[in-house]
């Protein structure tokens, strides 16, 4: 279950002592978290626990009050989102950030193109034939893997939520990111779509050796696909363990159900794990 690929020690995403404060409010409090390569790490917790805030701090959209974000062994705490992306960190968004006026294949291709162009004024304007060949191959592969090759020429704005989720996933796939942060990728999907989604995620991790950090409300999906779970509540890490351990944990149960009778809940726990 531990880092199978990635090579260097501490590979993947390591967050230490992460603290984010909005005004007076503590959104994330001294969080330590590690998402190694070749593994699906889940980040769960009740509403308002600080999951998306953690993602924004990891991807560079938000500067943490304190703490470090280490990506593949390098400290990227002071780097902007684009620089982190170029190092191989990709992400999706709960509210989906898509190029709605463009086609599915343009959306997917653009991620790879953005990585190639970076901040280079020349490559932002034109693609070299070799770059373009890479983009086309990556796009075709991503569309295929995510099962959306059939709608490649549709305008994204006309798609259903489920299809859009897959487009966003195909985009991080085509972008050749090694570490993916997925923010509630299954919300708005129906059960069948959600199951297929889970299968794709597993294949990315086991087949391609990517690292994935997943925020997800669909507990069923989380419990099926994740190797390792972190549970946040009020911005604090309250539990870390395997899905089975998490299900059995009275602390987690209390966080979700608000029971103060922790002992009683612990008694019921066996029931849940089965």
């Amino acid at each position, binding site marked *: 279950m531990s880092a199978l690929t990635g090579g260097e020690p501490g590979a993947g995403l390591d967050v230490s002592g992460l603290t984010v404060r909005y005004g007076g409010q503590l959104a994330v409090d001294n969080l330590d978290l590690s998402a190694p390569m070749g593994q699906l790490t889940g980040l769960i917790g009740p509403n308002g626990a600080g999951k998306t805030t953690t993602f924004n701090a990891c991807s560079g959209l938000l500067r943490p009050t304190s703490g470090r974000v280490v990506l593949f062994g390098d400290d990227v705490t002071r780097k902007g989102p684009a620089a982190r992306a170029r190092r191989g960190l990709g992400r999706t968004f709960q509210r989906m950030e898509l190029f709605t006026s463009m086609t599915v294949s343009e959306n997917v291709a653009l991620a790879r193109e953005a990585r190639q162009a970076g901040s280079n004024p020349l490559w932002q304007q034109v693609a070299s034939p070799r770059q373009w060949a890479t983009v086309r191959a990556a796009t075709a592969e991503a569309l295929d893997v995510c099962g959306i090759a059939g709608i490649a020429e549709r305008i994204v704005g006309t798609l259903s939520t489920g299809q859009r989720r897959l487009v966003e996933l195909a985009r991080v796939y085509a972008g050749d990111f090694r570490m993916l942060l997925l923010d509630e990728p299954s919300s708005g999907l129906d059960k069948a779509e959600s199951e297929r989604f889970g299968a794709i995620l597993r294949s990315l991790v086991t087949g391609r050796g990517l690292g994935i950090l997943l925020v997800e409300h669909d507990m069923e999906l989380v419990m099926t696909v994740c190797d390792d779970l972190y549970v946040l509540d009020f911005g604090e890490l309250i539990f870390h363990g395997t899905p089975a351990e998490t299900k059995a944990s009275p602390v987690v149960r209390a966080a979700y*159900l608000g029971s103060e009778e922790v002992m009683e809940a612990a008694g019921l726990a066996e029931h849940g794990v089965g």
Partner: protein
Amino acid sequence: MLVLDGVTAGYGTTGVLRDVHLTVPRSSVVALLGPNGAGKTTLLRVTSGLLTPWSGRVLLDGDDVTGRSPDALARHGVCHVPEGRGVFPPLSVRENLLLFSHPGEERTGLERALEAFPDLKGRLEQAAGTMSGGQQQMLALARAYIAGAKVILLDEVSMGLAPIIVDQIFEFLHRLAAEGVSLLLVEQYVNKALAIADYAYILSRGRITFAGDAAELADEDVFTRYLGSDVAAGV
């Protein structure tokens, strides 16, 4: 009595609620449970008029109030305390209470609120947003109290609050219910909600998957339902 009759609703082209039937009888407490993202908040928004359903009806004491504006519904006795804090953060406590009172009854409104929540007395000139989460929630609940609402919709009132404050809030809700007000409660503290509820509904992916007596559900393991019944059974 509040009735949702076959409500289907969503945002843009994305459907959230599908054919929801739900009843809140007079002077009873109904708990609305379900995993995050199931559509609980949307259901409350439809009920209070913030969102017009695509189809279906909302009935208040037998009148079809579907599509009425939220302010009209508020004047008809629907009080929705939205998720987060139902207060105006930059306004002082006094100004918040001014807006919560019926026009012309600002003074009595203030008095009644302070009677119910004496903690607010020393903070009348403080900006609501600078108070603690618990105090803000008390202020929000004061609206439900002084507006003289018939139906109160509460969205995660206990979110982010210390357990002792949560207890106080539930005690207050219990008192409201005893006075004959109907409560529709969206709550993550399932056990606490079920403890004061008469009826319970579970909403999952926009559909009602359980409807019945709260007591019935209290015996079951709701957590298992949240995790997804198949999984829990299978593991």
